[in-house]
């Protein structure tokens, strides 16, 4: 680097190293630039003050141990580097071996599952044209029109992995994927016995059930999960895989697995709401005029917007010991008797207690609805 700053020039000026032309130019600048003159003043004062002598060096040459090897200090500095390199090497090998293993396909990722239904309805409302299939791909599969996981003839499975994932994500439910082959004797046995047992209906209700041929759409899933069929793969509400088991489970084992995966706090969008939303979207799809279409979309939006709130409040109400549940019940009664201010105050008090708790968001949502509409949300209508 050869660039010289003003300070370098001032130092050279003080040391008498500038030629006449440079000196004259710098003096001109000093006369014209007060800031530069101030720096010169400081520098000159420091230089004139002189230099304190430093004690002489008395380290004899013999004290040096000349060696081409790094000094111990260098070794010490090198140890962390070597350790870091080793860690990186191990991480690289692990990453490579992990990449070489078959990757399990990810399940539906839906962190705010119930709200997804609302998003679907909103997205549908933004579509420009009403035509068959206009809502395909917005998230709610056609099968949702009449789907329930259990009926009079036992469990009901959706045909297809993609539809199952879509519906599970939209309705905030866990998903059971049943990998089968039509020629598989155990699969036939399950279909004829276990799946028909009415004792499974209650346990299966919170789920979306999908069946997939192990040699077809489910081939990739089957390859990474089993060596034989049938296989059950269970995904949680968040879309993460939570359990896998194979063979032909009896009713009790299958029920236990479903109950365990569902957990006590599951708050899915109720099936009637899902079906009603799907129907409203379908009506909007085939509407004869814009007015009918807008009505249908508005109905879908209303259902979808209320659904998560209703589900969450229902869950809160079930938790009898929770202060939130008590507050909701009391606020509902107060609102029904016309005491809106008291209802709001009750919710405010509950929010203080529930801050950071499981139902803080729901309480806040109910309060906001109470303030906006002047009435407690009509939760029963959407349940």
């Amino acid at each position: 680097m050869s660039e010289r700053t003003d300070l370098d020039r001032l130092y050279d000026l003080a040391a008498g190293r500038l030629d006449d032309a440079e000196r004259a130019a710098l003096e001109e600048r000093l006369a014209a630039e007060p800031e530069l003159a101030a720096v010169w003043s400081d520098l000159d004062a420091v230089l004139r003050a002189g230099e304190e002598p430093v004690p002489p060096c008395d380290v004899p040459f013999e004290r040096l141990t000349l060696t081409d090897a790094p000094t111990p200090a260098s070794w010490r500095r090198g140890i962390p580097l070597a350790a870091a390199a080793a860690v990186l090497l191990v991480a690289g090998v692990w990453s490579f071996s992990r990449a070489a293993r078959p990757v399990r396909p990810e399940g539906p990722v839906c962190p705010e599952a119930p709200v997804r239904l609302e998003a679907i309805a909103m997205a549908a409302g933004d579509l420009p044209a009403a035509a068959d299939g206009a809502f395909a791909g917005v998230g709610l599969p056609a099968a949702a029109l009449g789907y329930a996981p259990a009926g009079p003839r036992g469990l009901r499975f959706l045909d297809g992995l993609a539809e199952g994932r879509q519906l599970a994500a939209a309705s905030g439910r866990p998903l059971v994927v049943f990998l089968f082959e039509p020629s598989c004797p155990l699969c036939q046995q399950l279909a004829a016995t276990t799946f028909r047992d009415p004792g499974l209906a209650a346990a299966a209700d919170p789920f979306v059930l999908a069946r997939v041929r192990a040699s077809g759409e489910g081939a990739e899933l089957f390859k990474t999960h089993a060596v034989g069929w049938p296989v059950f793969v269970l995904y949680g509400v968040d879309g993460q895989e939570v359990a896998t088991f194979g063979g032909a489970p009896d009713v009790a084992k299958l029920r236990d697995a479903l109950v365990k995966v569902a957990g006590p706090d599951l708050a899915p969008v109720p099936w009637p709401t899902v079906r009603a939303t799907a129907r409203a979207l379908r009506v909007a799809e085939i509407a004869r005029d814009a007015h009918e279409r807008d009505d249908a979309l508005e109905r879908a939006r209303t259902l979808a917007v209320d659904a998560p709130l209703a589900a969450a409040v229902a869950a809160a109400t079930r938790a009898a010991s929770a202060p939130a549940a008590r507050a909701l019940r009391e606020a509902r009664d107060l609102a029904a008797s016309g005491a809106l201010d008291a209802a709001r105050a009750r919710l405010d008090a509950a929010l203080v207690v529930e801050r950071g708790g499981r139902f803080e968001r729901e309480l806040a949502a109910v309060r906001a609805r109470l303030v906006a509409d002047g009435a407690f949300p009509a939760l029963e209508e959407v349940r």
Partner: protein
Amino acid sequence: MSTSGIPDDTEGFRRLYEANRASIHRLLARLARDGHAADDLLQETFLTVWRKRAQYRGEGSVEGWMKTIAVRTYLNARPRLVRASAETGLPMDPPARPGVASDDVGGRLDRNALLAQVRAAVDGLPAGWREPFVLFRYEGLTCAQVAELMGLSPKAVELRLARALRAVAERVRAVVPQARAAALDAFGPRLNLAEGEAS
């Protein structure tokens, strides 16, 4: 003598050491503010010079190259030195040195007091100002050279130096008001300073 200019043999290296140890030790003592630490750093510096002698390409003086190594050795050791100073509770300052006879900045001044003030002012600077100041003021490095050594931009070095100079100069002026007047004398008539500014 190696092709690079640094002796390959012990005897040649001894001569190089004897010729340069005083200046490098002085630099290290000013940076470290501790004579004992400077002794250690001096040895580390020359061991590094010995090990890296083949890397010297003859660009610039041998002394400059060795001083670069010395500064980097100090910068590497700085955290250790600060830690050691904190642990022992001892300041890193060297003991006061006997002064020399006064010969400038007002012959009537107590030279020892002035130098002690200068040292106290320099030692009291933040490390980020003091190190460029030492390299610039005592080693005669340009701002660009200091910047390269310390991994800073020349402008940043210039700013730090201006602040360090201001701090030290104010200390000097507090002891020796005449120093300011003397400094301004050189350009006083041309600078057209205000009355209060020049006094």
